[in-house]
């Protein structure tokens, strides 16, 4: 999907994640603070790393501050996507002196010192590297150190002002380990993207994301499915029919059989659909092929999505009925979606199928 860039969208910053920028209609506003929230394993780190890598390509300095993961874990994530993190500052802020007895004897509660230290550490790193894009992973550490919502909010607000002064675009990751309904961050940030992982009764897990908020910008709301592939997240923007319109003739076309045309009144109309209902073996597929062959003979193009049997089986039995599909496949007028079999269906999300279908359809 391509969107015309308007004056407002010119300052949009692409996130680098394929499909997500379509959902965001171009990207996020630069120099703002965003929250990427999601349960464990939903793809936050991958999305954030891609954002920095994409920045590196355009010459934006990137800084990744991790409060929970260690640098080795990050490089392992990058390695699994065939990414190099060269040129991106990775900073691991795990308190090394955790086991030091010094804190335990202190009159102050350790968290009171640590929170200040952690925030100071973040600020120091940003001042040292002077980045354009920053990732803060994850906020749950800060939240735990803050101990109460007020301190937490103040700290985040302070960081927000600090980053705003330095013109940084910041992604803060949150693994939503807090109590549900903790919406304090939502009100502070400029935008919130929520990632989810859902388990199925059968087949692989499904992932979906939703833009919860994006100040001042239009985006495609609602859930969009995504997968994590080698090379990052792939988002499948939900198909929105109203966005795609094409002029076409509304003259009815023949089904290839005069009697069937008579039954239908006047054949089939472009822009309409026909549902063939009936028990197994009654001839639904054959009837569909009949109509399709009529279109192919007219010189039109067709796409056949076959789920229940193999294409070779279909071709053999069509041939036995005097309907030759092979010729049309050879000259390219007929596309069969071979790759979309049951196996694929089971492992993919509905939206993923829809996008795949659209892709096949557009190519023909």
């Amino acid at each position, binding site marked *: 999907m391509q969107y015309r860039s308007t004056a407002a969208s010119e300052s949009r910053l692409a996130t680098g994640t394929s499909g997500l920028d379509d959902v965001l209609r171009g990207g996020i506003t630069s120099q703002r603070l965003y929250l990427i929230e999601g349960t464990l394993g939903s793809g936050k780190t991958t999305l954030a790393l891609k954002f920095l890598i994409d920045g590196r390509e355009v010459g934006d300095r990137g800084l990744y501050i991790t409060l929970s993961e260690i640098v080795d874990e990050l490089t392992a994530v990058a390695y699994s996507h065939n990414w190099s993190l060269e040129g991106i500052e990775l900073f691991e802020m795990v308190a090394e002196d955790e086991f030091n007895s010094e804190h335990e004897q202190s009159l102050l509660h350790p968290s009171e010192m640590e929170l200040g230290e952690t925030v100071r550490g973040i600020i120091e790193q940003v001042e040292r590297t002077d980045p354009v894009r920053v990732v803060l992973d994850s906020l749950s550490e800060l939240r735990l150190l803050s101990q109460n919502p007020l301190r937490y909010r103040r700290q985040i607000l302070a960081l927000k002002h600090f980053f705003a002064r330095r013109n940084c675009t910041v992604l803060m990751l949150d693994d939503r380990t807090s109590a549900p309904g903790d919406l304090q961050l939502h009100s502070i940030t400029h935008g919130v993207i929520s990632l989810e992982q859902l388990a199925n009764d059968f087949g692989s897990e499904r992932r979906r994301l939703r833009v919860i908020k994006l100040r001042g910008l239009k985006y495609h709301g609602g859930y969009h499915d995504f997968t994590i592939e080698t090379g990052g997240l792939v988002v499948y923007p939900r198909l929105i029919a109203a966005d795609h319109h094409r002029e076409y003739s509304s003259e009815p076309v023949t089904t290839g059989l005069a009697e069937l045309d008579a039954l239908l009144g006047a054949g089939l109309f472009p822009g309409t659909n026909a549902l*063939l209902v*009936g028990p197994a073996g009654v*001839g639904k597929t054959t009837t569909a092929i009949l109509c399709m062959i009529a279109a192919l003979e007219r010189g039109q193009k067709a796409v056949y999505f076959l789920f229940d049997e193999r294409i070779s089986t279909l071709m053999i039995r069509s041939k036995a009925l005097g309907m030759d599909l092979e010729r049309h496949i050879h000259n390219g007028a007929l596309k069969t979606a071979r790759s979309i079999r049951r196996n694929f269906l089971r492992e993919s999300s509905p939206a993923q199928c829809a996008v795949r279908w659209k892709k096949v359809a557009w190519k023909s």
Partner: protein
Amino acid sequence: MEVVVIDSLNAYLHAMPSDNYLVLQMHELVSYLAQQGVVTLMTLGQHGVMGNLRLDVDISYLADTVVMLRFFEAEGEVRKSIAVIKTRTSDHERSIREFKIDRDGVSIGAPVLGFTGILSGQPVLTSSTGELFASRSSAEADGA
């Protein structure tokens, strides 16, 4: 592309987290194809062979045209019938026709008027006035 065939919706249904999801997803997909001026053909299998046939999901309201295919028996043979029960674009024929698939492909006969019990989903031919195709046994006898 001018024609898209989805064969069958039953398989597509199994990929959905819920029945409701299929209807929503199909709605969007079908509208998308409609916007593109595509003729979309979808097949939907029903449970059982005769009698009270059941659908996995009711999607008929999404369809512009519904073509119903049924088995019936006459002259000691299982035969097939075809009827259009809904079209949005034009006035369709109300009659049932016989439907045959063989070496010569698909043939559809003249309207058959002698059916009863159509709405029960179990059409029974009570009187034939010669609209049916010759039965296979008599056709073979003619050929021999």
